[in-house]
């Protein structure tokens, strides 16, 4: 995000460069951008190095091995990389869509309806935010084993659907973006609650939903521990766990560093593409309001 925000900030800052304070936020953002882009650029450069070049040439000197790395990676175990990529897309895409749906409905309900126990549920959710999901992975594994669901696609999808922070986000966003008067007007016009949600609330919630979707997509895409514990069958592995099997290949096998780095670089591309294409949903935020509060 820092990367995409940078050019715009710079563009705004130029015309009013005379203001002494104007340079400070830009400077901070530039530093942040360098901080986040540095490792990424290392991955990109290192992916071009062949096995022999990886540890012997200087860090940011591009190598000559990109094509052979790609070919090796795609040939590794008959192209298992593509399967892992597909799995990751399924986990991250499916998980993020379901999680966004659940979070939006829950957040909207918590924000716009008052019912007994609302405060309790919300406080429980806030408590849930404080429990890191890492801590839950093993108990979840034991539970899923009891249910006979361990080592299935569901074992990775289900635990990531309910995400307290996303619900919290959806509630805050619903409160701010949907004026109560708009719903009231809809009710007076005879719309049912379901229709209100679908036709009045949902369009207003889109930017918030895009945010939740992105958060969850990235979180699941990068998640390692949960699939590592849940999955035994390597044909269900996501990229994170799959590439790890290349790294920890046992004491007597060399780590396939160049394949791991190339795989990491490739797995960054969908994330970057997603951020670039989803940006426009944030802009609709500005034109989204229908009533003046």
């Amino acid at each position, binding site marked *: 995000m820092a990367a995409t925000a940078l050019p715009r900030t710079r563009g705004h800052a130029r015309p009013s460069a005379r203001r002494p304070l104007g340079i400070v936020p830009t400077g901070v953002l530039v530093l942040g951008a360098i901080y986040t882009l540095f490792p990424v650029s290392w991955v990109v450069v290192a992916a071009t190095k062949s096995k022999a070049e990886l540890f012997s040439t200087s860090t940011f000197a591009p190598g000559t091995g990109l094509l052979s790395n790609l070919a090796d990676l795609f040939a590794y175990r008959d192209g298992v990389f593509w399967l892992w990529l597909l799995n990751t897309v399924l986990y991250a895409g499916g998980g993020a869509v379901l999680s966004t749906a659940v979070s939006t409905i829950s957040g909207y309900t918590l924000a716009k309806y008052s019912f007994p126990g609302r405060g309790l549920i919300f406080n429980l959710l806030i408590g849930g935010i404080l429990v890191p999901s890492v801590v839950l992975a093993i108990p979840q594994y034991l539970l899923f084993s009891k249910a*006979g669901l361990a080592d299935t696609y569901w074992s990775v999808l289900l635990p990531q659907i309910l995400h307290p922070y996303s619900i919290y986000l959806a509630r805050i966003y619903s409160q701010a973006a949907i004026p109560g008067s708009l719903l009231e007007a809809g009710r007076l016009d005879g719309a049912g*609650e379901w229709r209100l949600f679908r036709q009045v609330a949902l369009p207003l919630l889109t930017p918030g939903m895009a945010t939740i979707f992105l958060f969850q997509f990235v979180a699941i895409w990068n998640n390692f521990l949960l699939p590592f*514990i849940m999955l035994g069958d390597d044909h269900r592995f996501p990229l994170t766990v799959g590439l790890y099997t290349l790294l920890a*290949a046992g004491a007597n*096998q060399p780590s396939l560093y160049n394949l791991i780095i190339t795989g990491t670089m490739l797995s960054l591309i969908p994330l970057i593409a997603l951020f670039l294409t989803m940006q426009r949903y944030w802009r609709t935020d500005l034109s989204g309001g229908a009533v003046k509060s």
Partner: protein
Amino acid sequence: MRVNRLAVAAVAILATALSTACSGGSDEPSGQAASQSAAPAGPVKLTYWTWVPNMDKIVTAWNQAHPDIQVTVSKQAGGDDAAAKFLTAAKAGNPPDLVQAEYQMLPSFVAADAVADLKAETAQAKAEFSAGIWGLVTLGTDAVYAVPQDSGPMMLYYRKDLFAKYGIEVPKTWDEYAEAARAVHRKDPKVFLGTFSSKDPGWFAGLSQQAGAQWWSISGDAWKVAVNDEATKKVASYWGGLVKEGVIDGMPYFTPEWNKALNDGRLLTWPSAVWGPGVLSSNAPKAKGKWAIAPLPQWNAGENHSGFWGGSSTAVAAKSPNKAAAAKFATWLNTDPQALGLLIKEGAVYPASTKGAALMTEAPDYFSNQPDFWKQAADIGATARGFTFGPNVGVTYNAYKDAFDKAVAAKSDFAAAVQSMQDATVADMQKSGFTLAQ
């Protein structure tokens, strides 16, 4: 009311999803029940967790010859994580039928009742292995907990060209090794004869085995823990002294900086195991043909000992419903000539079986300058001695990393680090309820 209906609908959808998932993914989780009733009808299905490269190809050979026992390989990340994952799966009740078990991890599997006793099924396989290696899977008891797969006798890898350049001889004793370390470092302060790795407890265990250490032993029902025995303290103090002197480096193995030092010719030796060529060819490709092997330096001139670093076995899960079939496969994999040939060729494994070691004839490409590589390796392998591993090697190994990290950084007393390994091991075993002999 509408909201309530919505909630009911959501719950219903979730429930349907769950039940379809149950029926969809039933082959593994409910396999226990299914295969017991279905075993006579269809082929027995076994799952196998391993990290040997190309194991799927080796298993294909088995599957073609044995239509009634079909094995599916699931390639895992190797090392300590794999052991932890297997123990968790065994505890949860859905382990794989077969699992690759490193020798040092086998006792913890046994202590957790996670692996089956294969004594009856492996009666004939016993003759295929040397007594020392067989001891690693029996743990000195009457039971047999796994079939040995590969072993890692230790030897000294050294840069032949750079030894000539700096004018040093291949050290025969550790005293000579220390002298050589001083000589090399004097000639070029950027160059080291070797490095002490605080990240590789298995390496240190192997060196201690060479010196005659016995970290664990069983007497009756009680465990005896002697991580701080004289042999181990001798090894630790030796390396500690050299690190303190500054003539041996303190960077860990298998790190990018280590790779770089190997490539730049700033590290001249690596006391390592027989699987070293794979690592060197991948991490230091530029030095191909420049390395050679020799027996480890000895503690006393004229002695001939080595230790083991690494090596693993094939174990059968105690909860597997098809133990007999799994044991049959494990025996085939590690003793059948066809399987051994495939393990060597496809899996780059140094087989533990005597027959398998004899199959190794062509020197590794990286060591093409040393055509008798495997002959030397076999001679050295015959001198290697191991020890019984305890049920909490993970704790001991972690204590090694913690204590020696600090000791190397501070160049402080290495024997004290060994003492803290001992203390951590004993404390953990007491906490876990093992009886300890004094």
